[in-house]
């Protein structure tokens, strides 16, 4: 997404007062993506299942949650959560104001921006299980969903235990 920089990266969390509709989330992410200095983006929120997970209606598809897509630059991601918080890693602190302005332009509700450590710096057990003992691109550390299903979310499983 961006090139390396000499400044110290910062991590911030955008916490809107309301959960965001997919359309609002898309508008906000477009604005964030256009802002400069973004290294990583993480979207968090409660799960939007594709089918009723349990109870008498178990297995019935939830049509409202089908085909929810987020477009980020050239890539389309399947939206599987109700967007509740957005974690960002920025190249430097000076980019925070640009993100704040993007939030003010797009969010229909009040929001907080907190600066804190969001992303892991060392591999977790989940990272090890999915990527092996050596990870070339450290930016993916801690971004693995521990509950990710192998057939659905598991994209990078190292058979060579990091030897490759």
């Amino acid at each position, binding site marked *: 997404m961006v090139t390396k920089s000499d400044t110290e990266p910062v991590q911030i969390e955008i916490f*809107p*007062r*309301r*959960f*965001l*509709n997919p359309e*609002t989330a898309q508008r906000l992410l477009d604005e964030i993506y256009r802002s400069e200095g973004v290294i990583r983006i993480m979207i968090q929120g*409660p*799960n*939007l*299942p594709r089918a*009723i*997970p*349990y*109870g*008498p*209606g178990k297995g*019935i598809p*939830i*049509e*409202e*949650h089908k085909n929810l897509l987020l477009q980020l630059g050239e890539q389309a991601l399947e939206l599987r959560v*109700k967007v*509740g918080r957005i974690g960002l890693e920025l190249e430097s602190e000076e980019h925070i104001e640009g993100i704040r302005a993007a939030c003010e332009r797009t969010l*229909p*509700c009040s929001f907080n921006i907190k600066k804190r450590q969001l992303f892991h710096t060392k591999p977790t057990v989940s990272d090890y299980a999915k990527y092996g003992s050596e990870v070339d691109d450290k930016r993916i550390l801690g971004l693995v969903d521990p509950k990710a299903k192998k057939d659905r979310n598991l994209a990078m499983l190292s058979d060579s235990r990091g030897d490759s």
Partner: protein
Amino acid sequence: MAYKPQYYPGTTSVGKNRRKHMSGDLEKLRDISDADVVTIMGHRAPGADYPSTHPPLAEMGEPDCPIRQIVTPTPGAAAGDRIRYSQFADSMYNAPAIPYFRSYWGAINCRGCDPGTLSGRQIIEARERDIEQYTKAQMDSEMNDVALSSMRGCTVHGHSLRLDEDGMMFDMLARTEMGSDGSVYYVKDQVGIPLDRKVNVGKPMSEAEVAKKTTIFRSDNISFRGDEGLIALHHMWERRSKWGFRPE
């Protein structure tokens, strides 16, 4: 002198609302038809006969029992109906009811019911025709706000989550939706099975109105610290600590 129950202390609006819920002296805000309530509950098709688990009590020849002579059976028990349930989730963002006060309402005002209180949801079980009546009473009254309370038989979480952009409580199964006319519609029954037609349950209250009608103490509305209920609670705590709660 006739006994007058004292339900809950406090002079704040929350204290007053809690007393209203417990006493059952609730304002009726809307009139959802019986058929719509039955549709949302999803236990039987509206208009269908009530399935039964035993013959009507009148035909069963009950044993000679003084308690049975004193207690009149509810219509559902007399007919031998099945036990069914309705369960509600209430948002912590000033929903009018909370699980404990739905339970108090049920235990005090509804005969033959079994209220179950959980952290973010509340279930009442009773004979089928009784629970339909109790559910309608809850949905029609000021215990319910259509955006902040919803009937959820399973996958209930939403109580402690932020609201959606349109002010509705988050629902993982998308059982309710805000219509373009500003009314809330149930599009699925309480366990998430899609309905043949949408059920209109009316318009939600304004934020100012729910803040007045809520039974929830919140630091950004009516704080618990400012309520007489806290003094009463301290009083009870002191008494039961010192003397094992013997009010005499």
